[in-house]
């Protein structure tokens, strides 16, 4: 992979954001991430990117538990608003609940559920997944 992965991180927890940013900074394939701290904020940003035809990030890493709009709200909103949405989404959660996994399967953009916190290995997985699909 020549180009660095441009990741959009939707996550409200400061510590998690800090750790993810740091991991990506040290990782050979990741660029500095774009961060939103809740679902609404991220949705509004994507809406304007698409309207103004700006470049989009390569992947979204989405937390589930967030204030205002949680991860599910964000997923619902993008699938309602943008039927042609093709950006891959990875969900990060602190315990993988089978019910969450089942629910995630309903969204075609969701690639898989990853356990929190992100680690170097999870970043490797995301990178290799993207190199196969891009």
């Amino acid at each position, binding site marked *: 992979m020549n180009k660095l992965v441009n990741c959009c991180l939707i996550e409200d*927890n400061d*510590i*998690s954001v800090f*750790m993810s940013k*740091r991991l990506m900074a040290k990782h050979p394939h990741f660029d500095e991430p774009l961060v939103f701290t809740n679902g609404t904020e991220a949705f509004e940003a994507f809406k304007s990117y698409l309207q103004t035809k700006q470049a989009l990030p390569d992947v979204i890493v989405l937390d589930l538990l967030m204030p205002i709009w949680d991860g599910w709200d964000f997923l619902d909103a993008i699938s309602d608003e943008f039927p042609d949405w093709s950006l891959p989404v990875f969900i990060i959660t*602190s*315990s993988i609940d*089978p019910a969450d996994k089942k629910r995630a399967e309903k969204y075609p953009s969701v690639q898989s559920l990853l356990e*929190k*916190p992100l*680690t170097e290995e999870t970043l490797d997985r995301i990178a290799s997944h993207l190199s196969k699909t891009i």
Partner: protein
Amino acid sequence: MNGEFVFVNEPFEKRYAFLGSKLVGQSVASSIHPEDMEKCLNAVQFCIDNPKQTTSITLRKPEKTAGLYYSSLWDFTLLQDGEDQAIGIIAIGTDLTETEIQSRTAKCFREKLNNVLQTMSEGYIEVNRNWEVVDLNEMTTKLLSIGTEKLPHQKLHDLLPLEQLPEVMERLAKAMNEPKPATLELPYKGGEQWFCVVAHPSVNGLQLYLQDISERKEREKKLEELLSLTMQQNERLESFTQIVSHNLRSHTNNIKLLLSFQAQEQATWKESELGKMLTSASNSLCESVTHLSEIASMRAKAPTQIRPVSLNKTILSSLESLSADLHANDITVYNELVEENMVFGIPAYLDSIVLNLLSNAIKYKGDKQPYIRISSQIRMGFVALSISDNGLGIDLQRHEKKLFGMYRTFHDHPDAKGIGLFITKNQVETLGGSIQVESEPNRGSTFTVFLPDANEQAR
């Protein structure tokens, strides 16, 4: 008209043969029981007074055998000649002996039945097809706490609160009409008392047997309340563990990762005493939280994944994975499982149960010729798997209650974490089994796990 037989038919002659062979000409009196003579003469007088009418009387034969009177029903009519002159009496008889015996037996039976009904400990009510109470026993009046004075001509719903219980009434009517016996439970005095009612259809209506089940109902009610309370508490506890394990997990994982960042940045910090201790504490915390979430997820897993599993294969694979340890500690294993044992279980749980018990036996081995003995028995629908050792043992008098508790250790052993038996017990119970222990310090321990027998299922 002088009291002699003028004609007898053949059946009469046979039945009254004891009076002699020639009956015609003999006195009628000889064929009648002395005590019935007056009744007979009255009947004759009636016939003379009412020439066109017939009168019926029951007469007994003057027989003394067995104290039983053979009786017959006689229709007496006055016999007249052409000028309406009385010339005699025609008596036509029907033998009543059989009928009489039957009615006596029935009476006797009825009396016995009445005795039983009166003295039995169940209430008894008989109703006719119009739901009128025909009969009831003393027990019924006691059970319903009613007086006996106003009983006759009452309807069933005057005794029992059937108007408020249409579904009970419907079932009783069904029992009467189908006819098919029915058993039902009936509240009385607004649920203060409860009866079990067995309804038997009879020729005339319905027989009801009442049993007081108030105490049982009371116990059932208390049990139900207790059960719902326990379920509520369980649910609360489960959601609590879910939340705790979920929230703790994210924080502990964060701390672990942050510490690793710190270690990467400052090699000296990593090697410092504080650095080492923080890292070790954080690792232990992560491990505990992992155990906790494992236990919390147990309940949710259980029912769907239980299936027949081979206990023998589980044990063989555990022994194989422990073979290095067994060899290093010079432990002899006596595997006495001969026949294939199938139990209902979740493979991962069985592996964990067996592995934990075996590694405990290794961990707490004694000094002299250590061994582990594995045997099984089938007892009342359970396979009892016993794992014995001659190791350190446990002082059960002191520790029995705490043995399967969380974070309990009973030996000063570096690997003792105090979580193993707690998880084992939880797993065994999730599979519907139980675990027992026998032990003596310095003699050894035997852990017996009872698991639901699946041998029938597997065949």
